[in-house]
């Protein structure tokens, strides 16, 4: 199939860099570009990147089918508290729910713990007289006169955006809509977010928190999207601009303007989307995406090509890696685990006298000692360098010279001497400890999801991913790993394979005993009707597929399980699905307890063909010898000593080539280390597939 408009452009605005990936859908080739982010107006960096890409692809924008856009704008505004002047309007008596949180500690022993400052402080949390019962019936009518006055006062105080969060609004949005109407009538310039639109689900703290985040970033996002559209239009692009959502779908800019909170974690989704696509292409059942970069490692367990979705996400953690220390955001988000373990993670000796690696990071500046930018604290990259895994003369494809002497001295001083270790032992310690940290976190994550790693494949991406993947996979008991071409920048490709997709939810508390297929069908139909225009706005006339989902629990249980529901399912079928899901997650289920539906969801997705992605590489031949660059000494974990490793150039390895560990495969964006016992084969797409084998059986 040939595309009339061959190009797709992905761009991801990060805190420091804005990343671009330009894919030619006809050849499957892609190009990656980076430019500095422009915080005063992030759309400027997008334009800069487009200009730069035109140097190599003259006039490409005219032949571009769509531009897919992700941004850290939303999350950074929250973290840096740089959002709009925002107010909350709550039911009388309940303005403090945002501040009271769940009233639970995230650390049992730390009496010095602090909690996030509420996005909206108390004087700007206002109340109106009104009250609904839990089934949505009105107990007390809305006092509209008083409400008008509240809006007038807020406008006079310079409030730009309002989050309206009334009790039980998920069951009946009437009062929230009436307030919105007053705002529109009296203060049309004020942005309004209704909790019954943003997250029509039960639990007032979580719904208020999510709606408040939405309100806080809404004016900012509206301004930004407008400028972005203008800049692209000025360059001659006025076709499909899409926004990447945290849930892994893309959507029209207007939807992102209304619900910017849905974009809050759009960046990290790229790696998961790309790995999921790779898994589907390779026909793999269980894939562990392993994306290790400079400051963190991310991982995601993808089963049957489907990414796990969570609606219990949290941002802006006071303790970045402690659950419960942040601001809950209950929108669909790909369930990715993030660990404070990257190339820049700092190694030190902790108060127990043990070697600690991360979560502190040296970042890009000063960075690891070996960068020679005045960094003095040893990092994972420093250790990898001394272990021979990285080539000092070929770092980032030879674009950076690394300082070995300083690195050795730093590791000896900070780690080796306190522990009574040689430099090499200390470097190995850092490498080993960071791998164990990552493996421990991921074992836990997989156990929580009820997954099984025995037949999984690790897909190693990110600059440091392939360097650590061998040891990481062995620790998890995974027997196979794949490194795609362009591994270091692979996550950027994810945006380009994302479908137009949107999830809508509504709390509808129903006992399975008291409902039937027809009633459920009507409720799901309502949600489908609500999602259709959102999809139409992004993909007019496309064929839409709907997936029905319900959050279900046993009566009286605190947390619900996300269960896929077939169309026209009657309560017996739903109960059976729930019990299956419950058993697969938790090991057992109970037949004698009442089952309750809490929230209904539908995911609307445009049915489309997958875009193929492949980097150019030497085809045929099957002989690895041509790619051999030489040999260098690197650390063999099983022997605990430096041994010769053959070094190969990845771009010269042809399909069908085979080699065995110990070996190193280098490309510009990353380096793959294969330990002894590993058997490598280059597959037809140019991916490196490693069967890890058992080093012990190789003999010394």
């Amino acid at each position, binding site marked *: 199939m040939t595309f009339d408009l061959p190009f797709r452009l992905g761009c991801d605005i990060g805190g420091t860099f804005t990343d671009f990936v330009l894919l030619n859908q006809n050849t499957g080739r892609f190009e990656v570009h980076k430019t500095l982010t422009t915080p005063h107006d992030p759309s400027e960096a997008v334009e800069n990147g487009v200009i730069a890409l035109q140097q190599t692809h003259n006039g490409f924008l005219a032949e571009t089918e769509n531009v897919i856009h992700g941004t850290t704008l939303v999350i950074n505004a929250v973290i840096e508290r740089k959002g709009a002047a925002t107010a909350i309007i709550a039911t009388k008596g309940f303005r403090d729910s945002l501040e009271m949180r769940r009233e639970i500690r995230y650390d049992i022993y730390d009496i010095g713990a602090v909690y996030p400052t509420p996005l909206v402080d108390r004087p700007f949390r206002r109340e109106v007289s009104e009250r609904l019962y839990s089934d949505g019936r009105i107990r007390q009518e809305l006092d509209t006169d008083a409400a008008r006055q509240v809006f007038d006062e807020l406008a006079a105080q310079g409030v730009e955006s309002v989050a309206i969060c009334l009790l039980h609004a998920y069951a009946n949005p009437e009062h929230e809509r009436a307030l919105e109407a007053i705002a529109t009538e009296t203060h049309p310039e004020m942005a309004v977010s209704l909790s019954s639109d943003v997250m029509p689900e*039960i639990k007032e703290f979580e719904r208020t928190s999510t709606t408040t985040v939405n309100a806080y970033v809404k004016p900012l996002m509206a301004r930004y999207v407008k400028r972005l559209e203008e800049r692209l239009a000025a360059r001659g692009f006025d076709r499909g601009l899409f926004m990447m959502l945290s849930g892994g779908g893309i959507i029209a800019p207007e939807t992102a303007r209304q619900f910017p909170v849905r974009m809050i974690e759009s960046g990290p989704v790229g790696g998961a989307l790309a790995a999921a696509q790779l898994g589907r292409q390779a026909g793999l059942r269980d894939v562990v995406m392993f994306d290790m970069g400079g400051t963190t490692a991310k991982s995601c367990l993808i089963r049957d090509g489907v990414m796990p979705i969570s609606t219990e996400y949290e941002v802006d953690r006071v303790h970045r890696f402690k659950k419960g220390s942040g601001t809950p955001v209950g929108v669909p988000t790909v369930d990715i685990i993030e660990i404070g373990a990257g190339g820049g993670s700092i190694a030190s000796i902790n108060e127990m006298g043990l070697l600690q690696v991360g979560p502190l990071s040296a970042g890009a500046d000063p960075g690891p000692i070996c960068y020679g930018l005045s960094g003095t604290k040893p990092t994972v990259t420093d250790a990898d360098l001394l272990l021979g895994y990285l080539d000092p003369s070929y770092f980032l494809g030879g674009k950076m010279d690394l300082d070995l002497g300083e690195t050795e001295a730093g590791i000896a001083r900070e780690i080796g001497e306190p522990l009574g270790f040689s430099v090499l032992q200390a470097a190995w310690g850092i490498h080993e400890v960071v791998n164990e940290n990552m493996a421990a976190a991921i074992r836990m994550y997989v156990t929580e999801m009820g997954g099984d790693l025995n037949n999984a494949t690790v897909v190693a991406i990110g600059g440091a991913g392939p360097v650590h993947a061998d040891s990481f996979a062995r620790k998890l008991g995974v027997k196979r790993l794949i490194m795609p071409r362009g591994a270091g920048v692979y996550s950027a490709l994810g945006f380009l394979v994302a479908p137009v997709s949107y999830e809508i939810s509504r709390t509808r508390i129903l006992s399975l005993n008291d409902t039937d297929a027809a009633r459920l069908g009507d409720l799901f139909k309502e949600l489908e009707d609500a999602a259709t225009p959102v999809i139409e706005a992004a993909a007019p006339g496309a064929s839409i597929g709907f997936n029905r989902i319900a959050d279900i629990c046993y009566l009286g249980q605190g947390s619900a399980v996300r269960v896929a529901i077939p169309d026209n399912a009657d309560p017996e079928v739903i109960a059976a699905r729930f019990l299956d899901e419950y058993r697969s997650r938790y090991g057992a289920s109970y037949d004698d307890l009442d089952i309750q539906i809490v929230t209904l969801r539908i995911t609307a997705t445009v049915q489309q063909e997958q875009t193929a992605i492949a980097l150019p590489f030497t085809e045929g031949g099957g002989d690895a010898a041509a790619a051999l660059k030489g040999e260098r000494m690197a650390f063999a974990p099983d022997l605990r000593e430096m041994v010769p490793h053959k070094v190969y150039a990845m771009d010269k390895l042809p399909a069908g080539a085979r080699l065995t560990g110990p070996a190193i495969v280098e490309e510009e964006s990353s380096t793959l280390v294969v330990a002894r016992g590993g058997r490598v084969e280059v597959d037809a797409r140019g991916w490196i597939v490693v069967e890890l084998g058992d080093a012990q059986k190789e003999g010394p």
Partner: protein
Amino acid sequence: MNTASKQFDPITFQVLWSRAISIADEMATTLVKTAFSTVVRDNHDYAVAVYDAEGDMVAQANQSTPGQLFCMQRVMRDILEQYPTKSLSPGDVIIANDPWLGSGHTPDIFIATPTFRGEELIGFGVTCAHHTDIGGRMAAPDAREVYEEGIIIPISKLYDKGEPNDLLFRLIERNVRVPERILGDLRAQMAANHFGGERLIEFLEETELDRLSDLTGPVVAQTEKSMREAIAKLPDGAYESSLELEREDADGNRLVIKLRLEVRGDEIFVDYDGTSPQVDLPINSVLNMTIAYTVFSIKCALHPHIPNNKGTSLPIHVSAPEGSILHPEFPAACMFRSSLIFNVVQIIFDALSNVVPEKVMAPSGTFPLWIERFGGKCDDGTPYVCGFNGQGGQGARYDKDGVTTTVFPANVSSTSVELLEVEAPLLCDRKELITDSGGPGRQRGGIAQEVVLRNLAKKPAVASLSGGRFHIAAPGMHGGGTGKHGAIQVGDDDPIPQPKQVLMPQETTITFTYPGGGGYGSPFERNPAHVLEDVRLGFVSPERAREAYGVALTDDNGSVDKDATARLRNQAAE
């Protein structure tokens, strides 16, 4: 066993230890996900650990509750006394909930599963969970003896070589109110232990470890060394403290906890001599729990981030008079021992505030726990039972204000108002922060809340009301002021004098005023800008700012009147 411990290099040791902790954490995840009990799922009232073949703890799950975790070590010792290693076989499962062996009340059931590699015992997966019910006079606030508090299971085999102990199963089933849930949760504990056992076998096969005990020794030694170093930094000395509680003995005298804490070299000696004799109320705390919370408090202050294993407690020596509320004799009632034992945290912090004032916190308004229960019938005749948890304010810290409405030292979630109203015909009129509830101080005590609940149903609801600090508010520390005291009021009646059960007719309200946290340091030393900010936020009233903090504001309360403030503070200083 007389073979010397195998020596590991520090990295190998660390990786092995981390792996062992990860096994315990995964077991805990399995337990939490499988358990039905909301006490386990939402209140985190469980402990999980892996033990070596000698019965010493190798690693514990990070989220384990400190009381159960500490007591588990004692339980394992007693289990191995009753069933020496040689008498254990594959397929055995051991159970116990005797409060005097375990964690001090009957709902906490310990399950230990020996793990075998072939015929060789390699270790144990052990879990403790707070069960939904254990029979007896369900949570009776006036129980006088432990016999009223449900079935007591001595150390027994629940499974013997894979065969269920039919008698014991039937006995449990016949003595509890919701047997399917209790048995379900026992199965969840066994599943978690089994999972841990499988992981232990893999662990030994994949690493160079021959025996778990080779790891236990260095783990305990390293932790102990680190704890001793932290204690050694304190100057030697003895500190005394006394704490009057608002609960009374049979003669109407308030109960008292007395403490003498002595730092000597790298050890701490804690003696509760002089503490009130045990009472005929369900609040006595067995010695295990007393030691557990003594160690917990010292660890929080001196070394919060090290693992809580035997090494943490080895340098801490605790004694309490036999027959006292902190070391009661059988058959004292003890169901609500938490309402007493959390005071140990307060008195230990008070003693330590003489030595490490920067590492302790002022008394909190968050204990005793406020866990309210409601039961009745909806208008359509459906019966309901539901709970409501809320929190007061934490005590202020040396350099930080107290945390607003957040639980301490227990760890339970609050109840969502929307969920409550779905579950029961109750309506919450308001749930809001209380101005001037935090104790004044250089650092202000945590803010508390007020909650009003209303019965909508025609049938009266039965409300079991618990809470405290009704008469003795959370005091301040080092010159800080007391937090607001707690109160529970039915309708317009006078506040109830102590926890009790009441009837709540239709449209009757109950007002819960949670206690605030104590302040830290003199309020006259508080930065006036922070007082102004507290006034802006409505945490402190302008009057309180003036009277307690010596901070005068301008007429619009928009800024600090510097001259007037200086005058107020000078007057106070004179």
